[in-house]
């Protein structure tokens, strides 16, 4: 048994594998040993209840899927009074993903969750392509990102993870803005703005026209983004996008990720995350690597 533990800000995770927000819930209990995960990340929460987007909300594309759930949320009250207590039965630390339409909403959410001992860290979803028109997001501007992170930083001492959008010209700039504004870690990245049309009906295959692309198809883009961010900042990175197996997770770690989120793969195989943990363990044993941390960023450029 190798040492799979990694640290993300003040958090020490027993292994690097955690769910991607929006693809995970307690309903997985019968199908997955949730307590084996490095951390838990429930669906992004908003201040008030929201209904989400028109259907269809998902469609399948080559080695990928598009989703436009929107932030279907019961609001922060329900999160605090119902969801957090429900998650107490699980042992891994809980990372609360928060999403807002204004910086004030992020502040409200962060302040509220800062008071919750059940929340180990915050992930700021500043990158959801499904909230505003045409996929716009805070994370597309370095200034907006900096301002948002500073505001949140001021109201919480918990580990703040900023989930970046991949839909930018230079992710390095946004990453550095988040770093200077006080982020503890970065998730790289949210989904890629995408669209599909049914040629027979001529209708968009997503009710909301556009949505976010995830799954194996995006992995080469995400590995590049992780590498770029790792070169540009010192923050620990949580890779997210297209991890289907242990090899994919190792690839992201070599590119610079300290931990890895798994989303679409869980739809395919509900126990994908524990399989991936086993794969990583095998890999470390096979390569006689004692600590997973020895692999982070160790792509061989010789």
């Amino acid at each position, binding site marked *: 048994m190798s040492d799979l533990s990694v640290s993300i800000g003040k958090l020490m995770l027993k292994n690097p594998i955690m769910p991607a927000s929006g693809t995970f819930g307690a309903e997985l209990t019968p*199908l997955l040993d949730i307590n084996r995960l490095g951390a838990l990340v429930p669906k992004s929460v908003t201040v008030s209840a929201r209904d989400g987007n028109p259907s269809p909300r998902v469609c399948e594309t080559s*080695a990928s*899927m598009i*989703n436009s*759930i929107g932030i279907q949320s019961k609001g922060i009250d329900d999160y605090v009074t119902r969801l957090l207590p429900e998650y107490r039965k699980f042992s891994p630390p809980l990372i609360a993903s928060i999403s807002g339409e204004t910086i004030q909403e992020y502040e409200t959410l962060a302040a509220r969750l800062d008071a919750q001992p059940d929340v180990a860290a915050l992930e700021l979803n500043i990158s959801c392509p499904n909230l505003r028109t045409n996929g716009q997001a805070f994370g597309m501007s370095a200034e907006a990102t900096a301002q948002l992170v500073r505001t949140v930083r001021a109201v919480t001492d918990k580990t703040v993870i900023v989930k970046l959008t991949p839909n930018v010209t230079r992710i390095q700039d946004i990453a550095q803005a988040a770093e200077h504004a006080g982020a503890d870690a970065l998730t790289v990245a949210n989904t890629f703005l995408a669209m599909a049309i049914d040629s027979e009906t001529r209708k968009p295959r997503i009710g909301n026209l556009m949505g976010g692309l995830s799954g194996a198809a995006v992995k080469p883009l995400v590995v590049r983004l992780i590498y770029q961010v790792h070169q540009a900042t010192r923050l620990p990175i949580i890779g997210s996008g297209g991890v289907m197996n242990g090899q994919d997770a190792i690839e992201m770690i070599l590119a610079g990720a300290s931990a890895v989120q798994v989303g679409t793969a869980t*739809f395919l195989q509900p126990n994908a995350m524990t399989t991936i943990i086993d794969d990583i363990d095998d890999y470390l044993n096979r390569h006689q690597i004692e600590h997973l941390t020895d692999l982070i960023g160790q792509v061989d450029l010789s």
Partner: protein
Amino acid sequence: MKLFNAKIIANHPINARYWHMILDASMLDEHVAPGQFFHLQCGDAQQNPLRRPLSVFHYHQASATLEFLYLVKGIGTQQMTQRRPGDYMNLIGPLGRGFTLPEQGALLLIARGVGVATLHALAREARAQNKTVYVLLSARTANDLLTAGALEEIGAVVHTVTDQEGTSDLEQVRPLLEQLIHAEKIGALYSCGSRRLSKLAQDLAEKYHLKGELAIEAHMACGIGDCYACACTIRSQGQLKTARVCSDGPVFPIEQVVIQ
């Protein structure tokens, strides 16, 4: 709910568009209610990451067989037709909330196309409990009137209408159904597979104060209630709410369904 591999016992075309698959479900140790569904990995999981939901067409606990009736629609169901006896299918299920039988009275099932796959299991269950079952089967052509024979065999009374014969329009179906409601002791209405027929069933249930249930469809990702991909709008206690087809449904009380 369980994740398991089930060996294919048979996989045959029924006609040009529909296939029938029988699985060895001895891995299953749960009750499977009519109206529940399974979430199937149909083919190359890398290329096609989403599972496909299919209703239980028939589950026979004694022989541990699980059957699906499926319309060959796109890539997923096409890949299903490639699977041979002896191959394994990877399934999650049983999932969702199934139908409930009326306390008393007969069942009136209103199905179109592959909707009958879902209602078939209900007919069987009701017949097993010795309830009277009437079925209105609607389809494009006589060829697409699936399982009419099988339904008659288990003792359901089957009425068929088709587009081909020009008997399937609402103007003709409505009086037929109203006549059944008047003449027979119908305790509940059930519908699946057609927006128009579901709307009609909803009207009739309201008009005649009958219990009713609709099975609805939505594109799904997780299938177990985690992701909200399958959201639909539900009318409950006078309010519109969002529900998940996969876990709050796919069967809903007929008065709750908002048919677009």
